[in-house]
């Protein structure tokens, strides 16, 4: 028996919770340059636990950057296509760092934090992002890579009750809202956000105190620690793209079907990296588009599989795929020729010489459970 897809081993760094994960029985793997927990009791059980209770994820590998300086909104808007000027204090927005050609260098969360903007970027790309920001932002914009901060995510329908018991007041946050709280004497920057499709929170805490906070969270029997394996299957079910797989420098916000992240004002005004190409794609349509795929049968179809039209012509590739624990069937996402990116379209997938039937499906595959306040509230 041989793994056909074992991860490559490279020298790795350890995260503040390394010993904590090992003590909890985690199986550790190399990911984004760090030793990280891929699973504790098992991916399937962990996945279903998050959908029904609350799961604690260590995402301290991600980069936390705090920007300040005169004209910060406009400076960031030159690289990010989101409407940051209209973003209120304590609100966050999903956005992307774009190359001058409009390709996606990374996807990220941007929060207005008083005079600052706080960005959370992917772990595997943070070094490159920092280089980009240093090179492409005006000299008067400074930023701090908050290496001393760990980052936890608490996700699932019971996350709000659990966290509000420890940190009273967090229940008042609505989806994509953040604020500074205190737990004992420890300052916590908490946002109501995440990458599982569930209601939940992301908590930035100084590394020195992260083990105590993680202990306090899992002391609640509604919380279990959750590894990267379930994080991947949860975000796939939620239709959320993963950088380095579903997004890369050859994709744009239009081909990646992330147009919601480009504000109306930004579309009208342009003025962001790659705007000419991206606005052209908005007006004229892009060649390819990211779609969801429901795969027939039970066998997972994974990243790299070919996507064929009904005549057998290659029209794209699967960029993420696997078993959906919630749906009990294989699901995938990938890029297809724009004309075939219509839900209901029948396609074929080819993996290791074997053909699979698939159908383009709307995403998310599993409905989001975000805690949105009623409009106008």
């Amino acid at each position, binding site marked *: *028996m041989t*793994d*056909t897809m074992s991860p490559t081993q490279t020298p790795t760094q350890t995260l503040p919770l390394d010993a904590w994960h090992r003590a909890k029985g985690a199986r550790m793997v190399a990911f984004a340059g760090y030793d990280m927990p891929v699973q504790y009791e098992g*991916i399937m059980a962990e996945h279903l636990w998050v959908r029904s209770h609350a799961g604690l994820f260590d995402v301290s590998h991600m980069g936390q950057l705090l920007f300040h300086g005169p004209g910060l909104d406009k400076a960031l808007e030159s690289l990010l296509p989101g409407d940051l000027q209209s973003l209120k204090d304590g609100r966050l927005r999903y956005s992307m760092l774009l190359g001058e050609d409009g390709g996606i260098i990374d996807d990220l969360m941007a929060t207005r934090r008083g005079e600052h903007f706080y960005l959370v970027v992917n772990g595997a790309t943070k070094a490159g992002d920092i280089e980009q920001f240093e090179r492409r932002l005006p000299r008067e914009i400074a930023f701090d890579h908050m290496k001393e901060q760990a980052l936890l995510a608490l996700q699932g329908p019971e996350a709000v009750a659990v966290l509000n018991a420890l940190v009273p007041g967090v229940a008042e946050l609505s989806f994509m809202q953040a604020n500074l709280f205190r737990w004992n004497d420890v300052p916590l920057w908490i946002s109501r956000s995440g990458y599982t499709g569930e209601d939940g929170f992301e908590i930035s805490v100084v590394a020195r105190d992260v083990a105590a906070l993680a202990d306090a969270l899992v002391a609640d029997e509604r919380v279990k620690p959750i590894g990267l394996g379930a994080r991947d299957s949860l975000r796939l079910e939620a239709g959320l793209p993963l950088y380095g797989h579903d997004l890369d420098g050859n994709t744009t916000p239009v081909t990646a079907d992330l147009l919601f992240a480009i504000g109306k004002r930004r579309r009208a005004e342009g003025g962001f990296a790659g705007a000419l190409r991206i606005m052209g794609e908005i007006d004229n349509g892009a060649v390819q588009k990211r779609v969801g795929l429901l795969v027939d049968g039970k*066998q997972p179809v994974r990243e790299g599989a070919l996507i064929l039209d009904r005549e057998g012509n290659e029209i794209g590739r699967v960029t993420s795929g696997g078993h959906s624990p919630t749906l009990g069937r294989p699901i995938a996402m990938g890029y297809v020729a724009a004309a075939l990116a219509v839900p209901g379209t029948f396609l074929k997938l080819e993996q290791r010489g074997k053909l699979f039937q698939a159908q383009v499906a709307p995403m998310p595959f599993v409905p989001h459970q975000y805690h949105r306040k009623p409009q106008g509230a």
Partner: protein
Amino acid sequence: MSLYFTGEHEWIKVDGDTATIGISNHAQHALGDIVFAEVPEQGRSLNKGDEAAVVESVKAASDVYAPIAGEVIIGNSALADDPSLINRDPEGEGWFFKMTLADKAELDGLMDEAAYRAWVATL
């Protein structure tokens, strides 16, 4: 009846001229939650080392190779409906297929149970 293991974590239970093939407890544990298994068709002729079956966990796909030469007598049809049998009872109900034993001499290079368990404990 005797039990053998390969370095690829397959087990071979030999009963007369028939061998039953599966993956070891160590293998199922390493794979994690198994969501799909495909076993060879009855009558298929296998050479030693041929890709005989596929097993997929949530994480990854793996091939199961024929540890010996022979002809497939039957695949375990229960795995199609419930591949998690391989997790629950890998060295029993979670067997993959039964095959004829073309050349008993091929068993000579395999580990016996004690040797396999001792080796796995070092991994």
